[in-house]
């Protein structure tokens, strides 16, 4: 009853969505758990609600600054003022001020990197922690492009907190990821809450094409015939800009989005998409996390994501409102090689690791050594982490193992794109699930050439247009 009342009063909902209540009960019972809930199922509520029924502060460890800021902004919108994100965007004084009043906050969002700052860790140890949330917990086992060694250090920090209960949240996890999360967070016999990741309102189509031009032409045709709102995922920033340009020249409402853009511009694009000013976003994988748009009708990949987990995460942004939505992946033979190149781009090679080791023993700083070797930012982080723990030979071994894992993950993804039978079934199988019932419109292999998921009516054009400056000023301020 208490749960229902809080749900209504704080969040304005009448009932829980699938899985939420069970997870919340375990949080209240101080039971550590791994909760796997599909994208769009209201994961945040699982820690927001019990926070109000428990004493102390909830510490949320979150991998992405953008995601963190978004969650803070959302909580503030809900009227919660006792919320803060501890990340590197604060000035020294501001951070000092926050740290000295830390006990005052109900929700503290923090990046794994920040936890390794001893002053910050020390302050957190002094306040009462209700429980700890590890958001997007699959990052722990994702060694991919965004290697985050500090994620692996979380357990070292948790030990100093007198074993609070832990809630690891993610939308994508298979057996291996679950094992990694359990091991790296040092969880003892965690409760598993696993809900089917199947999204019956999404259709999956995967098409192989002959050339880049074919893909572009296919996209031009698709956008002409069907409507968004939609996201087109591409492999690089450059391609995002180029493709947006091409589609725009065909009269489509498209804009590009990637991490090379200024923060303000990215905020503009997000707002335009939410507001319906722009119908299509042409983006790298930077777009999506923390974007709450329920009526995304299409997600199109025009490249091959590095892992099935990434792919599922990205297509999962379609149809959060439960209405029929189409996801399509188009690729060429060449794309397989491209992705292969990208996943190994950041991994230092054996001779580079040895050279790095020599430079370090000569007393060069990590940054200097990395520059001399010519390592990427990610490569430097990797070696920094490993060198603290392993010998050079062990490091080489580790990194080889990692490359092999990435390679294996990509193989699974390639297996998926080449699947001749049901794609949905294959995805679920990857996550250790069996498909019970195929929805009426399932995938490109179950119903070839089915367009039932596509809205073929032309969408109304947005009326956003350039105004005279004084007119614009009047629009803004009256």
């Amino acid at each position, binding site marked *: 009853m208490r749960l229902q009342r809080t749900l209504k009063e704080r969040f304005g909902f009448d009932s829980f969505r699938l899985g939420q209540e069970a997870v919340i009960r375990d949080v209240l019972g101080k039971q550590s758990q791994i909760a796997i809930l599909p994208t769009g199922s209201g994961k945040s509520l699982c820690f927001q609600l019990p926070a109000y029924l428990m004493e102390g502060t909830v510490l949320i460890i979150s991998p992405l600054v953008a995601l963190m*800021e978004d969650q803070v*902004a959302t909580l503030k*919108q809900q009227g919660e003022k006792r919320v803060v994100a501890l990340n590197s*965007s*604060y*000035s020294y004084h*501001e951070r000092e001020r926050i740290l000295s009043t830390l006990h005052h906050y109900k929700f503290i969002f923090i990046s794994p990197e920040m936890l390794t700052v001893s002053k910050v860790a020390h302050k957190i140890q002094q306040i009462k922690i209700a429980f700890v949330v590890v958001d997007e917990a699959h990052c722990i086992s994702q060694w991919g492009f965004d290697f985050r060694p500090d994620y692996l250090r979380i357990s070292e920090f948790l030990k100093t907190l007198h074993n609070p209960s832990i809630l690891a949240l993610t939308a994508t996890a298979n057996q291996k990821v679950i094992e990694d999360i359990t091991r790296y967070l040092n969880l003892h016999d965690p409760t598993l809450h696993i809900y089917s990741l199947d999204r019956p309102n999404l259709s999956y189509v995967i098409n192989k094409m002959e050339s880049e031009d074919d893909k572009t032409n296919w996209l031009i045709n698709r956008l002409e015939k069907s409507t968004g709102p939609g996201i087109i995922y591409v492999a690089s920033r450059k391609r995002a*800009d180029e493709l947006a340009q091409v589609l*725009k020249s065909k009269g489509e409402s498209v*804009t*590009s989005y990637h991490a090379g*853009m*200024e*923060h*303000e*511009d990215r*905020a*503009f*694009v997000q*707002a*335009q998409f939410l*507001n319906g*000013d722009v119908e299509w976003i042409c983006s790298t994988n930077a777009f999506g996390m923390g974007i709450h748009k329920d009526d995304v009708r299409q997600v199109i990949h025009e490249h091959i994501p590095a892992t099935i987990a990434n792919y599922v995460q990205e297509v999962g942004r379609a149809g959060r409102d439960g209405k029929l939505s189409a996801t399509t992946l188009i690729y060429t033979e060449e794309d397989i090689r491209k992705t292969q190149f990208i996943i190994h781009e950041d991994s230092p090679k054996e001779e580079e690791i040895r050279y790095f080791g020599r430079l370090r023993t000569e007393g060069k700083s990590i940054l200097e050594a990395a520059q001399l070797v010519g390592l990427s930012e990610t490569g430097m982080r990797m070696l920094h982490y490993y060198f603290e723990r392993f010998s050079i030979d062990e490091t080489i071994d580790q990194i080889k193992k990692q490359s092999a894992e990435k390679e294996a993950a990509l193989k699974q993804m390639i297996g998926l794109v080449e699947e001749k039978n049901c794609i949905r079934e294959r995805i679920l199988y990857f996550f250790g699930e069996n498909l019970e019932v195929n929805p009426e419109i399932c995938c490109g292999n179950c119903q070839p050439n089915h367009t039932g998921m596509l809205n073929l009516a032309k969408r109304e054009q947005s009326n*956003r247009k*350039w*105004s*005279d*400056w*004084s007119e*614009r*000023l*009047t*629009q*803004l*301020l*009256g």
Partner: protein
Amino acid sequence: MDFSILLCSLFNHLGGEKTPYAGFHLLRGKRSGQMMQDVAYYGVHPFFGILPKLSKAHFDAAIKELEHKRLITIDEHSILHLTEEGKRLVQFARTSHFDGWNYRGREEIFFARLSLIVQTLSHFKEGVKQFMPVQREPEVQQFVKVFLRNYPIHDPTFSAQLKKELYEALEDSQVTDEQKGVFTHRLVGYQSTGWTWGQLGEQLAVSPLNVKLSYIESLHMLLNTIIGVERYPLLNRIAYQIKVENHLNDSTRRTKILFDQGCSLEEIAMIRQLKASTIEDHIVEIALDNKQFPFEKFVEIEDCLAVQKKSEVLETKRLRLLKESFPQLSYFQLRLILSVPSKGVNSE
């Protein structure tokens, strides 16, 4: 504002004596002693720090393009020279109104504050109290929170007052209508989303970087229009501490305090536990920043005049060349002499 014209105009000031990198660091606002000296010697204050985030790749590409268009050449010592064509381009270009020296990227903070204030008022005007703030910098949010606390933000006449100030300041500032368009479309409000640099570039058929440049120029012009002018009380408060008041860095400032107390260079070096050459760098910087600097403490007035004359005749500010003519003077003395304000090179 066109980036290639901007570069040509900058290198025109640098008189064929500097490498492309000097220009790169200047645009990014690098604060080294050498840079401070160059800024003063060559009178390039307006360009200093107008693109703090300019990437090396972008800059290099732009330089390549200028070479390709034969507007510049780079000699075997990596020194950049304008061609006749390049000089003509500068001659016929519209004069720019940057004031980099006094703002150094801080104009963006002013705009961020203003944009969050406008976004807030625009939503409140429609009775909407919850929205995703377009500015996420905690310091900007904090500033706006404190700022708005003092005003009746629910009162529509308040947003009308801000609008009036903005309208008049934009008119007064002499920025072009296109610049006014860019400025107002970077602002956001209730159901009015912002335009990215790319979208603005398409609309105006120029490159995104050129849009950004003309936006920065317009901010400098706007700030110079409002700061200290009574007609714009709200904008003045929003521009609080935006103009750089103190052009010296901390270490140099500490040296200045000792110098002003009458310490000799040797004493300062000893007290501060720094090398004599570092203190000399500081002194040159202090001299550059102060028209009333007591040069006579270090150089004879006759030497000063002679060096200045020679510099004019040789058309150079290069120390090595001047040193050949004045072997009796130290490099430190030469640098000081060159920092004596001669003719109107100062931005103020």
